[in-house]
């Protein structure tokens, strides 16, 4: 009895301790974002002595983070839209239609999972230079969409396969054509999977740094991660502004996660466990 109580206490202490470790950098991010330039150099207190909103406001407007935010929104939005359109069509075909090459094509897309991003990074840049889209937002969106193919096809094909075939036969008997069945029967029923795919695409796209870094040259097209980088590449970094910018990046993601938590969880568990 006493033994189990000790075990419980230890377990709870560990849980709380790890929660603090999980939150640790976020606490300092929050703290730094509300400090002035003087205080961030002077004081190591977690709670700012004189909390100020100025740092966030400066970062948002004078340091152009509003513009970067809009750019990020555009790139992420287009990527998510592209992924949903292109791969819901393809996955529908893999799940319910009958045509030669169906299985081979499905496996082909899934096996692309093995090609590391870093291996094709340079060829993508060379290709886009030749196509003349390097440095544009389109030049980011196309490889981002293509890069999600394996996981998305896997998740969506699974989702569509789980929808009872009788529904399709019934719609067919009522005279619905294939696209109509896809649009009015399958898409609405697969909504949870579609949302899962959307969030699992949106978050890494929002945070993407490497391809964006080597593609974009024009600061007016910068996304948030690149904007953040410019703050730290100067001679004297002002960490209060760096933390304010970081906060601007993570808040939308955290909000999205808190709103749609179960889709994240289902998606990740589904992706790994099959």
């Amino acid at each position, binding site marked *: 009895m006493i033994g189990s109580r000790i075990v419980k206490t230890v377990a709870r202490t560990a849980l709380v301790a790890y929660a603090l470790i999980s939150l640790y950098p976020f606490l300092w991010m929050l703290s730094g974002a509300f400090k002035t330039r003087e205080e961030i150099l002077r004081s190591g207190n977690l709670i700012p002595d004189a909390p100020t909103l100025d740092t966030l406001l400066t970062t948002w407007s004078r340091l152009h983070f509003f513009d970067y935010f809009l750019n990020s929104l555009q790139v992420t939005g287009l990527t998510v839209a592209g992924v949903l359109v292109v791969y819901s069509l393809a996955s529908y075909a893999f799940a319910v239609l009958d045509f030669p090459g169906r299985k081979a094509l499905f496996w082909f897309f899934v096996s692309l999972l093995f090609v590391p991003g870093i291996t094709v990074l340079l060829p993508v840049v060379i290709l886009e230079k030749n196509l003349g889209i390097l440095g544009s937002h389109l030049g980011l969106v196309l490889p981002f969409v293509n890069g999600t193919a394996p996981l998305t096809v896997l998740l969506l094909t699974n989702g569509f396969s789980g929808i009872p075939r009788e529904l399709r036969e019934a719609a067919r008997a009522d005279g619905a054509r294939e696209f109509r069945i896809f649009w009015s029967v399958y898409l609405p029923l697969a909504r949870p999977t579609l949302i899962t795919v959307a969030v699992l695409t949106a978050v890494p796209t929002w945070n993407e740094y490497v391809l964006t870094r080597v593609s974009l040259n024009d600061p007016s097209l910068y996304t948030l991660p690149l904007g953040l980088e410019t703050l730290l590449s100067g001679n004297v970094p002002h960490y209060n502004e760096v933390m304010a910018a970081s906060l601007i990046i993570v808040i939308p993601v955290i909000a999205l996660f808190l709103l749609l938590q179960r889709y994240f969880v289902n998606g990740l568990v589904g992706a*790994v466990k099959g």
Partner: protein
Amino acid sequence: MSTLTTEDRAGRLPAEPPGRGRGRGRSRWGRWLTGWAFVLPAVALFLLMGVYTIGTGLALSLAKWNGLTPEWIWVGFQNYLDLLYADPVLAPELRRAAWNTLQVMVAVPALTVAISLPLAVALNSVRRLRGLLRSVYFLPYVTTGIAVYYAWRYVLEPDGAINVLLGSVGLGSLSQPQGFLGNPDTALPTLIVVLVWSSVPVATLLYLSGLQAIDPNVIEAAHIDGASPRQVLRRIVWPLLTPLTAAIVLLGVRDALHGFQIFLIMTNGGPGGHTDVLGLQVYRLSFMKELAQTLGMASALGWMLFAGALLLTLVNARLLRRIR
């Protein structure tokens, strides 16, 4: 994410050709065309972005090029040989990067499992706050990226929060006056800690889902038979979770082979190459060598990483099958 179980998925694809169109008398060709029309956008995008890039990448790995001259100089497998041993400057650099990568590859999955399994067991044992804690634990995953890495840089600075914290709890001797990332001895271990911090969320989530899928009757029966909690954990829970452990280890190993973002952002390989990893080498050979003819080598190294990951996945799948 799901390399382990892709073969299980074959079963999910309907094995039989879907039922023939009833009543509407559609021809076979009609059905085929419909199918192809649905996959066309995905295939077209892949033909544009995928075929060319993979093809160019493979070809480029057999050539020397600096990205500007019109001509490639074909050198066969020389790039691969240069990387492995022939180039007197690059090969040793690469060996060091490989050694660092190997340390990350071993340490990160091991520590991730060691932390997330107990965490998931503890989380599974509490009822109150489970949802809240799970959300908190998950934050490092959804925010992975430059913002969080900069926050870590900020707390790891010479006069950053971690040094102050160590000083205030009487562990000042452990603090790093040059900053944890500035000291060659602590830089790599520090990055490993941050990597573990970012990979614990998914691992904990997977373990938690695995624990919740275990039939409570099995555990109950073991208790009745007189098994101690530790025996239950070792003899029943751990074996049942083995596939998940394998998945977590595989994910960690692949991330270690391919991932370099955190190294690029937090240290860029420094101080003095102490945190250089293979992915970062590919990046540098691709984009940081100005006019030197290193693009072919970048490609060659990229494909070696691809082969490495493939090999590890196959070994892992084989091991897993044996365990099952």
